[in-house]
C-alpha cells in the first residue's frame, strides 16, 4: 500500500445529500479522494454509488453539501465545464457513441483540448488539420495501450460488450484526466477480461499518476487494487478506510451478509 495520508485531498466531498422526490439517494455523506490514489466505492444495489459519481461530475445537483476540488469550493457548474477541469468517467451502462467508429469515439475524448475555430474547421485550414493529426497521434497511443488496433475503424455498436467497455475506458483516458471515475468497469466480464481491465487500471494509475475513483461489485478486485474503500448502504456511509479496515468493519459485514467473508 502506498502512503498517501499526508497528501492534500484532490477532491473533498462534504455532507452531500441528494433527493429524488421522496427518495433519498445520498444522505449526508462526506469522504475525500487523495491525489494519486485508487479509491473504491462499494455497496449493495441502489446504495447511491452511481448517484455519487453523478454528483461529482455535476450531472446531479445535490440539495445539500459542498464539493471542494483542489482546495477550492466548486460553485454550480455544468458537467461539460467540470470535464474541462480534468474529470473523465465511464458509465455503468455503456454510453458510447454507437454510430461512430472506435477511433472517433476515442477522439471525442480529446475534444476539450481542441482549439481550432469553426472557420478553420470549415476550410480545413490552419490549426484544423495540424490539430487533428496531433490528437490522432495521442489517440493511437491509447489504442496501442488498450490493444484495440484491429477495431480502430469499426463502428462501436458492432463490438462485443467487453471491447465496448475497453473503448469507453479509452475515451476517458484520451482526455488525460486528473481524476478518472469508473462506474463498474468490470461488470459482466469473465475472469480473464477482469484481469485485463485491472491491469489497465493499475497501469494508468502507475504510469500517468491518474487519480481513480472506482465503483465495483467484485470484492476480490476491489481489495486487490484499491488503496482506500468507502462503503455506502441505503444512501448512507457505513465504512471508510483501507481494504483491511473495511473488511473487518462489522457494519460492512452486516450489510454484505457474508459476501465479504470470501
Amino acid at each position: 500500500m502506498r502512503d498517501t495520508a499526508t497528501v492534500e485531498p484532490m477532491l473533498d466531498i462534504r455532507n452531500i445529500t441528494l433527493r429524488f422526490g421522496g427518495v433519498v439517494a445520498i444522505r449526508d455523506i462526506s469522504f475525500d479522494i487523495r491525489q494519486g490514489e485508487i479509491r473504491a466505492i462499494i455497496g449493495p444495489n441502489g446504495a447511491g454509488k452511481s448517484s455519487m459519481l453523478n454528483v461529482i461530475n455535476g450531472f446531479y445537483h445535490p440539495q445539500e453539501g459542498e464539493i471542494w476540488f483542489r482546495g477550492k469550493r466548486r460553485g454550480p457548474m455544468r458537467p461539460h465545464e467540470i470535464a474541462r477541469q480534468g474529470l473523465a468517467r465511464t458509465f455503468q451502462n455503456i454510453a458510447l457513441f454507437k454510430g461512430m467508429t472506435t477511433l472517433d469515439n476515442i477522439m471525442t475524448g480529446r475534444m476539450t483540448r481542441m482549439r481550432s475555430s469553426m472557420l478553420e474547421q470549415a476550410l480545413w485550414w490552419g490549426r484544423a488539420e495540424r490539430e487533428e493529426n496531433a490528437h490522432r497521434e495521442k489517440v493511437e497511443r491509447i489504442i496501442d495501450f488498450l490493444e484495440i488496433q484491429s477495431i480502430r475503424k469499426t463502428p462501436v455498436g458492432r463490438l462485443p460488450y467487453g471491447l465496448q467497455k475497453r473503448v469507453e475506458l479509452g475515451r476517458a483516458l484520451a482526455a488525460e484526466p486528473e481524476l478518472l471515475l469508473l462506474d463498474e468497469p468490470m461488470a459482466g466480464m469473465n475472469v480473464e477480461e477482469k484481469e485485463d481491465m485491472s491491469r489497465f487500471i493499475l497501469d494508468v494509475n502507475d504510469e500517468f499518476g491518474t487519480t481513480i475513483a472506482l465503483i465495483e461489485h467484485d470484492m476480490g478486485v476491489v481489495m486487490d487494487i484499491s488503496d482506500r474503500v468507502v462503503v455506502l448502504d441505503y444512501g448512507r456511509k457505513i465504512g471508510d478506510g483501507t481494504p483491511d479496515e473495511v473488511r473487518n468493519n462489522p457494519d460492512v459485514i452486516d450489510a454484505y451478509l457474508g459476501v465479504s467473508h470470501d
Partner: protein
Amino acid sequence: MSIEALNLIEVLINGLMAGVMYALVALGFVLIFKSSGIFNYAQGVMALFAAMTLVGLQTGQVPFAHLLNAITGMHVTHFGWNMPSGLAILLTLGVMVGLAFLVERLVLKHLVNQEPIILFMATIGLAFFLEGFGDLMWTAEIKQLDVGLPGGLSEWFEGASMALADPEAGYWGMYVDKLDVTAAVVAALLVISLTLFSQYTRAGRALRAVADDHQAALSVGISLRFIWVMVWSIAGLVALVAGIMWGSKTGVQTSLSLIALKALPVLMLGGFTSIPGAIVGGLIIGAGEKLFEYFVTSDAFHGLTGFNIDATENWFAYVLALLFLVFRPQGLFGDRIIERV
C-alpha cells in the same frame, strides 16, 4: 350582458368545440404512445383513410376504380348500391382492424427496440403510404360524408344567448353548430368507454400493465404483438370517430391529414401519456387560437398597435406549445423526469 361579452363567449364556445375535434385525434396518439412508446404520426391519415373508406362503402364506390380504368380501359366508378350507414361503419371498423394487423406484421415487428425518432419517421412514411393508398383506392376528390348526425344551427344556444342580452341591443344570438355539440358528446362517450374498457376488461388491464411496465408485463406472459394489434385497432376506432366528425363538418378531403399536425401541440401541452391531458390540451389549443384570432383582428388591437393581421390560427398552436415547453418541458400533467446514466 353586453354584446361584447356575449361575442367573446361565443368565440370561446366555438373554440372549445374545435378543441374537442383536436382532442379526438390526440386521443389516438395517446393510446398508441402509452402502450408502445411510438409516436404515431399516421394517426391523422388514419382518420382520413377511415372517412374515405366509410364514404366509399356507403356510396358503393368501386375500390381502385381509377387504377383499374387506367390499366384496362374500362370506365367503372360505382357498384350502384347505397349501404346503410351502420353497416358501412361496422365494415370500416373491420378495415381499420385489418390495417392494425398489417401494420404490426409489416412494420412494427421489424422496428422493435429502435430509437423513438426512427419510429417516428417510420410512421411519417406510413402516413404517406396510407394517404397515397387511400387516394388510389377511393380517389382524392372532396366527398360529402353524411351518417345522419344532427347538424346546423343550434336553436337552443341562439335562444338562450338572446335571452341573456339586452332586448334593445339588437343582438342576434350565438351561432353554435349542432354537429360540434354532437362531437363533444361523442368524445365524452368515447373517453368514458375507453376508461371502462381499460379498467374492467382483461384486455384493458393487460394494456395498462404494458403501459406501466413493459418488462414486467412481458414476463407475466402478456403477448406484446397481441397488445399492439389491439391498441392499433382501438386507435383505428378512434380515427374512425374523428374521421366521421371532421368529415361531416368539412367534407372528406386530403387536408384532414393535416389535423394530425395540430394534434402535436395538443399533446405537447397535455403530455403524451394522459387521456385527460389530451382533452384538456385540445380544449386549451382550440379556445386559445380562436380567442387569439378574435383579439388580434379586433378594432381595439388594430387601433393600439397599427398591425393588421389575421389567420394566426396557422401558427398559434405551435408557438404556444413551444413557449409552454420551454418553461415546462414535461407538459401540464407529466412528472419531471431526471435522466440517468
